[in-house]
């Protein structure tokens, strides 16, 4: 839902970032207001996951230029855990398996960290069980997954559902979902999309990183961005995604060449 007067939650300006010696982001600009759903598309390797990890505060990435403002303050000043407590959520493209750490315990500690930040009381194990059982319904997940180690031995689709479960518990203000639709069967895709739609509201915003129109058939984006060579090359409405379905990404090379870069550099 686009409302020009809605408060800005996230503002990225001229963001450049590198990992080790490799420059990956080359000037990303993006404004996200509350109530909006943004889709970010683009070729493999164009920098989508890098952008999401920079937003979440992954220590391997160095910001070389630019700024990110979140809820009016400098996001880059905040540790990853503080970002999460303040409502920034990243659904990982590849959720990490953590043997020996109980999923239930992990979810509880995580939820309580966010609650404490919001001035809400901590949930004990019993109160949390009630909450988690209710939120499990959002992703139609079997409670048996709570008693396993975090993501350990979960199938690809189960890991993604576990990510959305975390999102349902943390009630983020800005949720970045990095290819949460990849690897899902048709039913699971619908369940995950329903979950995201249930959680999206006028006071929060969602950034969907995806390769596929089939997700955007289920979650209607207000904006579609195309990333290439570490920047947002084009922004449009939901029809841009449909156009990409027809044309593919070939025009990207031309456009980058117009910007004075060799296509070879892009790949």
């Amino acid at each position, binding site marked *: 839902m686009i409302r020009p007067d809605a408060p800005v939650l996230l503002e990225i300006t001229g963001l450049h970032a590198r990992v080790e010696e490799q420059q990956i982001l080359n000037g990303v600009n993006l404004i996200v207001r509350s109530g909006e759903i943004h889709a970010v598309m683009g070729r493999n390797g164009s920098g989508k996951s890098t952008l999401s990890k920079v937003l*979440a*505060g*992954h*220590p*391997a990435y160095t910001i070389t230029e630019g700024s990110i403002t979140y809820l009016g303050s400098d996001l880059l000043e905040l*540790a*990853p*855990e503080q*970002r*999460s*407590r303040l409502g920034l959520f*990243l659904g*990982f493209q590849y*959720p*990490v398996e*953590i*043997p*020996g*750490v109980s999923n239930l*315990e*992990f979810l509880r*500690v*995580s939820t309580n*960290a*966010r609650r404490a*930040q919001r001035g809400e009381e901590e949930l004990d194990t019993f109160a949390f069980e009630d909450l988690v059982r209710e939120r499990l319904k959002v992703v139609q997940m079997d409670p048996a997954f709570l008693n396993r*180690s*975090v993501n350990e031995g979960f199938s690809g689709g189960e890991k993604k559902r576990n990510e959305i479960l*975390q999102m349902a518990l*943390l009630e983020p203000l800005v949720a970045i979902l990095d290819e949460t639709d990849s690897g899902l069967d048709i039913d699971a895709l619908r369940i995950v999309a329903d979950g995201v739609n249930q959680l999206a509201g006028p006071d929060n915003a969602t950034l969907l990183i995806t390769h596929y129109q089939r997700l955007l058939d289920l979650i209607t984006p207000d904006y579609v961005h195309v990333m290439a060579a570490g920047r947002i090359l084009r922004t449009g409405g939901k029809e841009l995604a449909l156009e990409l379905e027809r044309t593919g990404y070939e025009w990207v090379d031309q456009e980058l060449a117009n910007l004075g870069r060799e296509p070879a550099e892009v790949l």
Partner: protein
Amino acid sequence: MPAVVMPNTADWLSQLAGVPMPARGQEDWRFTELAALQGLAPELWSGVDPFAQINLPAGISRIGADEAQGLQQQGLNSTGGGNVWSVRLNQGASPRCLALRVAGEAGPLQLHFDAGAAPGLLALQLVLVLEEGASLELLIQHGSSGPNATSFVVVAQLARGAKCNLGLLAPGDARASLLSHLSISQAPASSLQVTTAVGGWALSRLEPCIIQLEGAAQTRLRALQLVDGKELADTHSQVSFEGPDGQLDQLHKVVADGAGRSVFNGAVRVPRRAQQTNAAQLSRTLLLSERARVDTKPELEIVADDVKCAHGATISRLQQNELFYLQSRGIGAEQASRLLLRGYCEEVLRELPAAAAALNPLELLLRERL
């Protein structure tokens, strides 16, 4: 390097064992400095007999002293444990002995030996006979809060079809030592699990020696050993297959912090008569400090040609991607590290006999690091 053990203590220990203390030159003790024993007063521990009041569940009965003596000799002969220094020291230190026979399905048994604050050397022996088809779940807890040493020798025999789940939970004290030897013989179709969790001792040495008398038995070993400060923890395990179709599944985990030292030597013997043996040994180390030292050595003697023997060893730090995943969910870096450490330890601790859960082994072993 000059001997750091106080002459009188060293002499006294040598006298008890009837042989000199092991020197670093000896292969079995190469990495294991016995200096921690130097603080030990040369006297026998004189606290309350820890075997004085033990309630035995149904299915378990006591064995007379003479018979126990014979069984112990026989057990030690079969594994070669009789020549080991720790065993000889134990035998020379007026050990208190508990000998038990298990028939049928016995209730779970729990033994707690706490050397407490009293000084000196406490020597304990446990002899276990599991009759054909018998099953036993036994949790042994060691502890100390003073300048003492506990010497503990377990000799167990599992008859055909017997099942034994033995747990050893030993949170120690930085002034105390633990020397523990286990000689266990298994008849065919028996199954044995030994889970050990040791940490916090100035010196700990564990020697699980298992022999599958005719092969065709199952052995599962799970171990967690933690070192911090200047602690030294050593496990020398040995599993021998004397017939075909035996199985071994061994996992040895280490957490090395501070300037701690950890030693693991895992011997597996598969002679020609032990065809179709299936043995897997994995040793994993979590290194939390630059100053900690870790020596890990699998020692596979495999002569039989038709066997499956796998072994592996890893040494790693806390995984950055795991830490980041937890942090990205609002969990602070320190708490995230603690969660990962706990998870690492839990993999072994959750395999202790059920009675351990009530003792909260994680808290006992990790203490303020939790």
